[in-house]
């Protein structure tokens, strides 16, 4: 099988400043200063063409950071990400301009993604048709409901035909009919041999749609494999965590957080 995404030893460190003076010192001193937090620590995995990978993990474990790194929005602090093809991220805040109408936003986004005039003219009716928001397409985006916004965002991102699709919680705002429509479209992508990364808290959707699962636990990969193997372990962990007493939970969280913090 051909590889589509190869992530090797990727770490992402964020500086944790408590005071403005620390920021200043860090900027001036040649060596870095202050504490850092590992959002991701030494992540490695490979994805093949046609894979549909669900990224699972509790809040704050680095799922969104990982999806941003795969789609090239933020660079990793260390390690390499090799992406064969064009990656596109679909997130809830889809970067639409509030003052402009839906139609203008479509042109704007397509322009920025490097489409030329002709391609945009051909794409626009398809996008409008898929978003299915009626006359609102000629109203400013600020008047949209959150559902309409995500529909438009999703419609644009899916029609630019990327090789690798990263979907970060984007389906959770749409209603059932729209989610089904999106899942259909994603199945079509799958059959065309494109790679999809899917982040969702709906375990049902995950099980239905993804074959593989990447369990990210507090910044590192806990398990990577078939959905049927990973999901039981993840569910077991969730249940165990739920059963802990409040003090135990806090103790557990503290330990994990300390592991992710480093000096400089």
């Amino acid at each position: 099988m051909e590889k589509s995404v190869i992530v090797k030893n990727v770490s992402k460190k964020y500086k944790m400043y408590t005071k403005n003076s620390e920021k200043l010192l860090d900027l001036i001193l040649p060596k870095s200063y202050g504490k850092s937090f590992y959002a991701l620590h030494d992540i490695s995995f490979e994805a093949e063409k046609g894979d549909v990978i669900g990224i699972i993990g509790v809040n704050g474990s680095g799922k969104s950071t990982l999806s941003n790194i795969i789609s090239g929005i933020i660079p990793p602090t260390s390690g390499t990400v090799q992406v064969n093809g064009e990656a596109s991220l679909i997130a809830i805040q889809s970067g639409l301009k509030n003052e402009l109408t839906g139609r203008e936003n479509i042109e704007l986004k397509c322009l920025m993604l490097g489409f030329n005039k002709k391609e945009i003219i051909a794409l626009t009716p398809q996008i409008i048709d898929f978003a299915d928001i009626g006359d609102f397409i000629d109203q400013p985006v600020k008047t949209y409901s959150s559902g309409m916004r995500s529909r438009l965002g999703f419609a644009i991102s899916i029609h630019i035909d990327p090789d690798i699709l990263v979907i970060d919680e984007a389906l959770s705002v749409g209603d059932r009919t729209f989610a089904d429509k999106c899942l259909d479209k994603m199945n079509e992508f799958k059959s065309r041999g494109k790679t999809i990364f899917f982040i969702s808290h709906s375990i049902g959707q995950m099980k239905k749609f993804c074959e593989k699962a990447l369990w990210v636990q507090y910044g590192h990969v806990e398990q990577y494999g078939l959905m049927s193997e990973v999901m039981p372990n993840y569910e077991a962990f969730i249940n165990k965590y739920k059963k802990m007493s409040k003090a135990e939970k806090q103790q557990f969280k503290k330990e994990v957080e300390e592991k992710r913090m480093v000096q400089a």
Partner: protein
Amino acid sequence: MKSAWKVIQEQIKNLYLIRRLSLYELKSENSNNYLGMAWIIINPMIQIFVYWLVFGYISGRGDVLLENGKHAHYITWLISGIFLWFFLQPAIIQGSRSIYTRIRFIAKMNFPMSAIPSYVIFEKLYQHLFLTGIILVIMQFTAFKASLYLIQLPYFMFGAIMFLFSVSLITSTLSTIVRDVHQILISVMRMMFYLTPILWEQAYLEKVPSILRQVLLLNPMYYLIQGYRASILGTSWYAVNHSAYTVYFWCFILIVLMFGSFIHLKFRDHFVDYL
């Protein structure tokens, strides 16, 4: 030199994109006002009125002696230069914040980041062209009707665009990394307004030591304002008559452009980290 060339090539390749984006920018900026685009005219007019009131009328200024020996009413003379400032000032300020205010929106897009400051400048250029047209019409009702000297105007406009673009490459990069740079820039620009011959004519400088006069001349906006006045009031062939100053201006642009392109290319992959 190599990075400057690369940045310029990126601009030429993305010219259509820059044009479209700047139009949208213009649209989204003015769509909230009932008077819409009319503010492009109203705003400068109010400001010109206030400056004329304070520095012309209240302080009882007489006519201004021009380079070619003619005299001009203070208000006519004021208008012919100040409207360039209404292009330079907002373009520099907006250019400086162009990248860090848009980085979220733009990070994953398939176009070079160097196009961001330029489309912001382009947006201001549309307004400037519009205002230039109006000023030229107004001038027809004064003693300074259109003359052959007007053909210098496109040259100085080009100079202004190059100046804004090269400066914005530096300021947008620096203020993305250190936000305070933007605040410093706002103060500097406020100062520059009084250190550039916008409200006072060059003859005013005769009383100051020559060293100070030379220092003030180092400001490239000085050159542009004087050039605009020479074209609109039809006083001289400014760029030719002051050839040494012209050479200095373009050297300044070249150096700033090279340095700006260099740091822009060096840091642009990491702009997102500085959010």
